[in-house]
């Protein structure tokens, strides 16, 4: 019993650190594009983490959950946002997009557009499966990203 408690504490502590790191990366990148990958395999964990993150972070983070039919990471987001650009944008649900391969391939091709038109940090929540595809299908885009790792308890 004591061991499981201890590992929970360790996970809590390392997640707390990771969230502080994420908050810092978002704040410090204010006003310029940055790609940040939040690596987390547990959807149930995400929710709690996001709440803590917003408490830690002085910048307001807009959230967007992608629907299954979502197609173009740049094109669709750009249209949705219009002139109303957020200070930071966090994307959930990549793992449930049906044509993820196409989405990632397209994002890789237009990566300069993100840099030119998204002058804010973009945080993508990724599972290991999404991350693996990102490395394979969008190596250029991925090479711009830094990572924060969040471990399940």
């Amino acid at each position, binding site marked *: 019993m004591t061991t499981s408690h201890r590992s929970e504490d360790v996970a809590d502590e390392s997640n707390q650190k990771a969230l502080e790191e994420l908050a810092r990366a978002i704040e*410090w990148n204010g006003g310029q594009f940055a790609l940040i990958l939040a690596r987390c395999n547990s959807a149930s964990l995400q929710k709690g983490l996001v709440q803590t993150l917003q408490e830690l972070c002085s910048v307001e983070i807009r959230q967007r959950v992608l629907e299954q039919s979502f197609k173009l990471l740049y094109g669709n987001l750009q249209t949705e946002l219009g002139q109303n650009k957020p200070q930071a944008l966090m994307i959930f649900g990549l793992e449930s997009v049906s044509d993820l391969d196409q989405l990632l391939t397209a994002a890789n091709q237009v990566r300069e557009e993100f840099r030119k038109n998204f002058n804010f940090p973009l945080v993508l929540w990724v599972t290991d499966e999404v991350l693996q595809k990102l490395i394979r299908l969008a190596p*250029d885009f991925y090479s711009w990203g830094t990572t924060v790792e969040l471990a399940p308890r």
Partner: protein
Amino acid sequence: MTLDLRKFFQATNPSKTLAVENEEDQKYYIDFSSVRGGKIIEELKDNITFFSPDEPTCELFTGHIGCGKSTELLRLKADLEQEGFHVVYFESSQDLEMGDVDIGDILLAIARRVSESLEHLEKVKIGEPESLKSLLRGAAKLLQTEIELSAEASVPGIGKVAASTEGKFSAEVGIPGVGQVTASDKEGVSLVALGIGKITAKAKNSPELRSKLREYLEPRTNGILEAINKELLEPGKEKLKQQGKTGLVVIVDNLDRVESRNKPWGRSQPEYLFVDRGEHLRQLNCHVIYTMPLALLFSNDLSGLTNRFGVDPKVLPMVPVKLRDGSECAEGMALLRQMVLARAFPNVEPEKRLSLIPEVFDNPETLDRLCCVSGGHVRELLRLLNDWIKKNRTPPLAREGLEDVIRSRRNQMTLAIDDKEWELLRRVQERKQVSGDDGYQVLIRSMFVYEYRDSEGSWFEVNPILAEAARLNA
């Protein structure tokens, strides 16, 4: 002098490309040419300015993802402008659908970018490009975009059309990637730019329209080339010369990103474009530099490619951290240290920066570890550094944090590697070479394997982060 950690963090953002015309960015720029197998950018420049200022040239340029290609091309642009050339640099990924590109698309993209650029120069007015306009009219008709390619007419159906008091019409046309274009009082080249922009925007988003457009353009390739040469490039150059310019150079960046998928007839897209159709790419009557996929260098068709273009592709290699025999490359390491320190202290003289290492790192060896493990891949180095900085509230950065970052990177990379690839990686480690196997192209594209060059030619190494993986050494 203390380090501003936040500024340092911003200056190491791996998504940033240095622009040499920006004064702040100039301070970050490190000239790696002495360790990059010769002065490639200088060679490209000399080929144009010294050996052939008047006769058109065509060059191919390639390198690993993130090794600094765009940065170097932008430097070349600035250098050429200094020598009096008019340089049109553009990212072709904005104009082309990289999964499905054909020669006509590339030629039209170039025509559009040149037209746009000439249009912005005052006093460069060239004659009406009649055959280009008629070609575009044909294409537009086919795509049912109602582009009226005449000087004063309105542009019905594609935007709000307003009549001004003088009774002239003007139309606001939104073209993705170009912004608002006003079609009033446009003539000649501006209309070509507008027309091509509209057509490509439509075709880019629709495979059906693309294939329709192909059917129309493909048999006319020679005509298109001739029209671009006779109606755009030649008169453009003439006018530029009258203004005291030495010539015209087009730099097509990002064309290395055309996807390697196969065309319907089974040929891979890069081989189709650069080998089978290289003949057409090199017929433009001005200086052109195309970026091409690195993988073509490992293609069985490399000799075909070299024959078509009459020149070897210029490769921007990695910065060596080790020599071929495995010993340290002192010069490469020294430049990488400078690159890191320049991002921390842009306003300090290079020699003085070294004394400031303790302000940034817990130990000089920690900085060396960072440089070494980056394998001399410029962006990878920035990414590791950026990942590491954000773990800290205050400097100096500690070794422990760096090892965390390295472990995490290795862990991510190994997620994507299968058994067969581990085997290929082991072979690279042993032989320092790769074969024509497709598997290697993927390893290079995924940055698992890096290529280095010295006077004896090239050799390959496993990405140092992966080279430390237990799995590889099992």
